[in-house]
């Protein structure tokens, strides 16, 4: 198993007398992209602020590379690179001067390292311009440069795709995958967008109202909530239809929903084959509806905010 880079245990936080984070626990390993998923107001940003030392936890333990953040702040935080909300930089300084500021604070960073990171985020041409002349995308890249400058073990990003255009999001996604897979970095990403987590992350912690309600592999969660097909079949044939579907390899589960409706969990690309099998078996199929289950449905199910097996979400799936 890969090294545990970030370990959070029993994290608690109250603002005033109102507890807003209760008992958040999870681990993040080297080389993985870890999603931190929850609706706005679930406590994502508050948790991140505690992870990077901007806010103090009322209880619980945060360890980075095995070092307690609360007890040995400088040693622990030296392994963290982060962008909390927007990348705020000194607008009246140039990009290079900004990086030099952080280099002096982190220590042990050579001018060559600054050159290297500037090339890495592709900002060579603008690095000696003042940051106030930068576009949002350029600021984002400079923000990533400052976060990676001191070679952290973990990169913490709070809603990184906020304000980016689709091309920018795609670019960021590839960039993050590259960091995790090639550089072995742990990447921690918070988001309220389920599709984003689904596309970028290996594992995910889902939080709601200051509690972690589920932690697991994104793939496993997706399998558990695989695509569904609704079959409308006359009640006289429904028994037989169920038997036929059960014999098919592509179908993982079948159950009768109502007198004329049958549900199967299966690979959606195999729908026509399944239909063929039913027709060959003499079943008059009256209707087929496919449903793609996304993390969105999963989320609604887990938080009890929606129907039993998610919202109707036919057709288009962004991938």
């Amino acid at each position, binding site marked *: 198993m890969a090294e545990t880079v970030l370990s959070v245990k029993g994290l608690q936080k109250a603002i005033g007398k109102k507890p807003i984070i209760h008992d958040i626990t999870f681990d993040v390993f080297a080389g993985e992209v870890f999603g931190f998923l929850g609706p706005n107001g679930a406590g994502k*940003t508050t948790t991140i602020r505690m992870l990077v030392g*901007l806010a*103090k936890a009322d209880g619980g333990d945060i360890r980075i590379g095995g070092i307690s953040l609360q007890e040995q702040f400088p040693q622990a935080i030296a392994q963290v690179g982060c962008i*909390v909300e927007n990348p*705020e930089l000194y607008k*009246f300084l140039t990009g290079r*001067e900004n990086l030099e500021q952080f280099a*002096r604070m*982190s220590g042990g960073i050579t001018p060559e390292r600054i050159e290297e990171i500037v090339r890495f985020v592709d900002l060579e041409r603008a690095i000696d311009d003042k940051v106030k002349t930068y576009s949002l995308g350029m600021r984002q890249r400079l923000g990533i440069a400052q976060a990676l400058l001191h070679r952290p073990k973990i990169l913490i990003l709070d809603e990184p795709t906020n304000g980016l255009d689709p091309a920018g999001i795609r670019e960021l996604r590839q960039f993050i995958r590259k960091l995790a897979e090639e550089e072995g970095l742990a990447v921690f990403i918070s988001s309220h967008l389920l599709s984003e987590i689904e596309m970028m992350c290996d594992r995910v912690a889902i939080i709601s109202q200051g509690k972690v309600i589920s932690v697991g592999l994104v793939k496993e969660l997706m399998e558990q909530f695989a695509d569904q097909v609704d079959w409308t079949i006359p009640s006289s044939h429904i028994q037989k239809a169920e038997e036929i579907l059960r014999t098919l390899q592509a179908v993982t589960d079948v159950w009768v929903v109502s007198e004329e409706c049958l549900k199967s969990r299966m690979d959606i690309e195999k729908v026509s084959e399944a239909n063929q099998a039913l027709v060959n078996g003499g079943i008059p199929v009256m209707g087929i509806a496919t449903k793609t289950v996304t993390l969105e449905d999963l989320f609604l199910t887990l938080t009890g905010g929606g129907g039993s097996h998610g919202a109707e979400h036919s057709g288009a799936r962004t991938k």
Partner: protein
Amino acid sequence: MEQSIVGLVQNETIKLLRRRRFLVVVLILAILIPIFTYAQYRSVVTAQERMGTTDWRPLLTQQIVDMQNRLASSRLPEEWRDLIKVRIAQQQYYLDHDINPMAPGGPTFARGFMDQAISMFLPMIIVVLAVDLVSSEFSEGTVKLLLTRPVRRWKVLTSKYITLLLFTSLTVLTTLILAYLLSGVVFGYSGWDLPILTGFEVSGGELETSGAFMLPQWQFLLMQYGLGWFVCLVVATVTLMVSVLVRSAAAGMGIMMAALISGTILTQMASSWESSKYLFVVNLQLTDYLNGTLPPIKGMTLPFSLTVLSVWAIAALIIAYATFIRRDVTS
């Protein structure tokens, strides 16, 4: 792992200079000092025209007569009466010992300038320098970068404080240099050795001239700018606290301006409210102790004022550090 404070001070210095705070301060001084020089020049010329002579003795005699006339007026309040009596005694001493207290020249102007600037003008300039030192990091969000580095919070604030003290000192020095150089264009650059009378003591509203002695003007200036420097350090420290507590630069500026102005108002009317002498803004006019001017409130002495200012500065520092180290950063 622990970073040296020198690098952090370098960071803060770069930010302060690139924010053009010090440039603004120097520009304010460079524009206002010539204006004051011209005003001083006009008042000398007008006085000479009125007297019909360039001799200072009749001028001083006339001032003493003016003040004696004011004393004769029955509408004059009692506390003013004491003050004017003291002034007359002092002027008479200058006349008797053949010392021209208004002898123009760059050093004399610099002395007069510090007398006028110590309680309002210089503190205001220091406020310009210090008021957004911490609050701008919060309002611009850059504090998130500052506090997520391997540096403890007290060290971050200390680097800011050291930088502030450096630039405060530099501002006082610049004031002396600019006041001397710019006024010298009109008044000439001589007068460093001019004897200045000091060592007055005030006891029970009476000016004790027994302890008075002469000091070459350069020594007097050194003492005076030393006191001015101390006042500026205290104002800088209090402003740092305000900058930690208040997030908007405009609000911080308003608070400090209100404090300084109320200090000036209080010194003029607080003689009957004795405990106001424990406010730091009432104790800023330290140079008066050198000049032998009666303090605004009975019982105030130079050691007393220095103590009050020090206590305020230390309290401000404690509050600033405690708040900065403990506070959660929220958006």
